[in-house]
């Protein structure tokens, strides 16, 4: 496989674009969450209107092998509705902040979706039969044959989304993260000042850790950074995630630039320095993103990151994600750019999410961001970057080189060119 270094073209090409291309964007249509499931077959998106649209990857088609990623709408439902907090006289947005899939255990799919205040567990199941034949008599009065009564008949495939659990009223502040534990029984939810631990089966309580150190007892939360005197508040929690393999380990990052790795067994904390965290698939590494850099940390080495990549995203909360084999990482950026970092060769490439700049199947041309305000072919000065166009939400297919990312209201699916043709 080529590295990223080729200036003429990258390995990546545009596969699909979903959504409207109107200039006027309805607020409800702005995408706010993107997440592949564990097999990569399903791709869920959430938007500010509280809706979830799930795409399903269609079977590989026989024609040009370059066309591999074909996602079509599989299910769509209203996950959250706006609510009103009477006490505070504030509206609670229905915007979907995060979607997390549960590992699949049976034919149905489960996902957690959350807005600012409420997390919901949704069951997505298929139905392709329906019962028919309840009537004992035909229209004209004849008795029906017993074998035709109440049977299951095939019908067009229908995908049902039903809410199985609603986990409400546990967050005073706005939920920014949810993360499913590797034990598949618990998950955490984090807001600005607290992290709660839930058991999937119980909606009326969250769990806490009893610690021998009384000072670290947080009440009904597993992390509580709210100071007694709010005047002393200096940081908020920006993200939190469970370790993918160790069910007792989780991290949370703070706005001040620290990342804390927590062991629920021992309430052990260790400090790193960053802002946005993501464990690698292997669990060995952790990726953190702060204002200007993307860092890969080896969990066994606390002192410094093993790799550092320069990233020029400031202030906005760009998601970053790992490739399935952890060899590459990706982060969104301004100007509808997204950047891929190859860990081994320390190479990176900047690409643009735009349906104007390339037809499906054609390799994307990398961009260069230079200083000043130049604007040339595939080169743009940093002063010319459009900061209103951002790729905030990204997800990498866990097994294939397929990327899903969202601009304001469009979902882009990119795939890596296959070499053989």
């Amino acid at each position, binding site marked *: 496989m080529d590295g990223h270094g080729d200036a003429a073209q990258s390995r990546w090409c545009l596969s699909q674009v979903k959504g409207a291309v109107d200039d006027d964007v309805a607020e409800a249509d702005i995408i706010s969450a993107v997440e592949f499931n564990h097999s990569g077959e399903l791709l869920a998106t959430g938007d500010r209107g509280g809706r979830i649209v799930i795409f399903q990857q269609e079977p590989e088609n026989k024609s040009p092998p370059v066309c591999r990623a074909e996602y079509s709408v599989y299910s769509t439902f*209203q996950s959250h509705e706006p609510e009103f907090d009477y006490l505070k006289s504030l509206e609670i947005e229905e915007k979907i902040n995060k979607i997390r899939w549960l590992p699949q255990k049976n034919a149905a799919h489960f996902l957690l979706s959350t807005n600012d205040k409420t997390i919901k567990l949704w069951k997505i199941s298929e139905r392709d039969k329906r019962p028919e034949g309840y009537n004992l008599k035909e229209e004209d009065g004849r008795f029906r044959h017993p074998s035709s009564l109440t049977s299951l008949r095939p019908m067009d495939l229908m995908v049902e989304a*039903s809410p199985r659990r609603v986990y409400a*009223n546990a967050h005073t502040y706005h939920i920014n993260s949810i993360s499913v534990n590797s034990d598949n029984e618990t998950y955490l939810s984090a807001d600005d000042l607290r992290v709660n631990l839930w058991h999937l089966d119980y909606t009326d309580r969250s769990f806490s850790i009893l610690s021998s150190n009384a000072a670290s007892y947080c009440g009904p939360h597993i992390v509580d950074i709210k100071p007694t005197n*709010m005047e002393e508040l200096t940081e908020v929690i920006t993200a939190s995630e469970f370790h993918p393999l160790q069910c007792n380990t989780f991290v949370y990052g703070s706005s001040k630039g620290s990342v804390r790795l927590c062991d629920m067994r021992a309430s052990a904390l260790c400090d790193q320095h960053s802002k946005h965290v993501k464990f690698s698939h292997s669990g060995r590494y952790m990726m953190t993103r702060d204002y200007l850099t993307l860092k890969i940390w080896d969990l066994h080495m606390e002192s410094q990151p093993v790799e550092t990549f320069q990233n020029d995203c400031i202030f906005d909360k760009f998601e970053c994600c790992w490739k399935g084999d952890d060899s590459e990482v990706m982060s969104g950026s301004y100007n509808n750019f997204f950047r891929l970092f190859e860990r081994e060769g320390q190479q990176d490439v900047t690409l643009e999410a735009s349906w104007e700049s390339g037809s499906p199947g054609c390799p994307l041309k990398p961009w260069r961001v230079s200083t000043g305000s130049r604007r040339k072919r595939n080169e743009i000065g940093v002063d010319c970057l459009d900061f209103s166009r951002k790729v905030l939400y990204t997800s990498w297919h866990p097994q294939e080189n397929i990327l899903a990312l969202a601009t304001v209201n469009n979902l882009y699916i990119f795939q890596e060119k296959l070499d053989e043709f």
Partner: protein
Amino acid sequence: MNNQGMMSQEKMELDLDIPSCLVQSDGHLRRSNSEPMINGLSDTSQVFQREVLRSRRNSTTVVRPNVVPSSPVRVPSTRLQRIKQEEGVDVMNRETAHERRVCFLIPLEVQAAMQMSQSWEESLSLVGDLKCSVDACRSRVATVLFPLSDNDLEKSSLSSSPKRIDFVPVSPAPSPTRGIGKKQCFSPSLQILVSSNGLTPSPVPSPTRRFRRSQSPINCIRPSILGPLKRKGEMETESQPKRLFQGTTTMLSTEVSHSPELHTCLSPDLLDGSLSSLGSSSDSPAKMEGVSPSSSDSPLTPLQDLSPK
């Protein structure tokens, strides 16, 4: 957060007094943003009628590109400043409200807590300027809230929780017909929402149906632009003639803005009753081809251009 700009495009019409600290300068109700805020009501306790609020929800806000989110000069400490400011107000109000105190029992079950929030509305009007700020751990801790004096606030005998409990009742229990237990069903082959009994919409639209029936919001969702239909921007590498195209989001958004009393929804009845009438409407800004959902033998070509001109 960027809600301020977008919020300004939505009007909230209430004929009640709104505490000034909660109202933006342009008179609109403040929208919850992402900062931690512990805030009860400041001077006056207000109870907002749910019916009044419901009426605003149907308009989709159009965001002009230049209003869309932020320049990178935004300072991250703004959020912290706002949290502290809110808390400062909170503390001040608690100090001035030392005359009256209320004790609440927080039950463990959410059910009871929901009922509690109902009675809050009554209690608050009696309490007057009492500032109640509590944590949302009410369903987890059974304890007495609210000490009898400011001093007691610090040394309250709440053994199983931090020194102060903040109580944030969210809106009262949703209608039992909402949320849990209500399935939403989608047909991938037809690319439309269907009713949960699996029946597809009837192929013949009723000739007498001119107006959309009021639909319960439970069964309907506002369609997303991502699905279930192709838009202009979608570039599939091969055409999929089997896809069916129904009403567009644009169309329904327009509809909604004209009939605010109706929740947007995409039900089989609705689609089916509206397709032909709207498709022929010349003043509808959205171009749309009405297609009967049941006809599977006619070749259907992907819509090329759905954007309003």
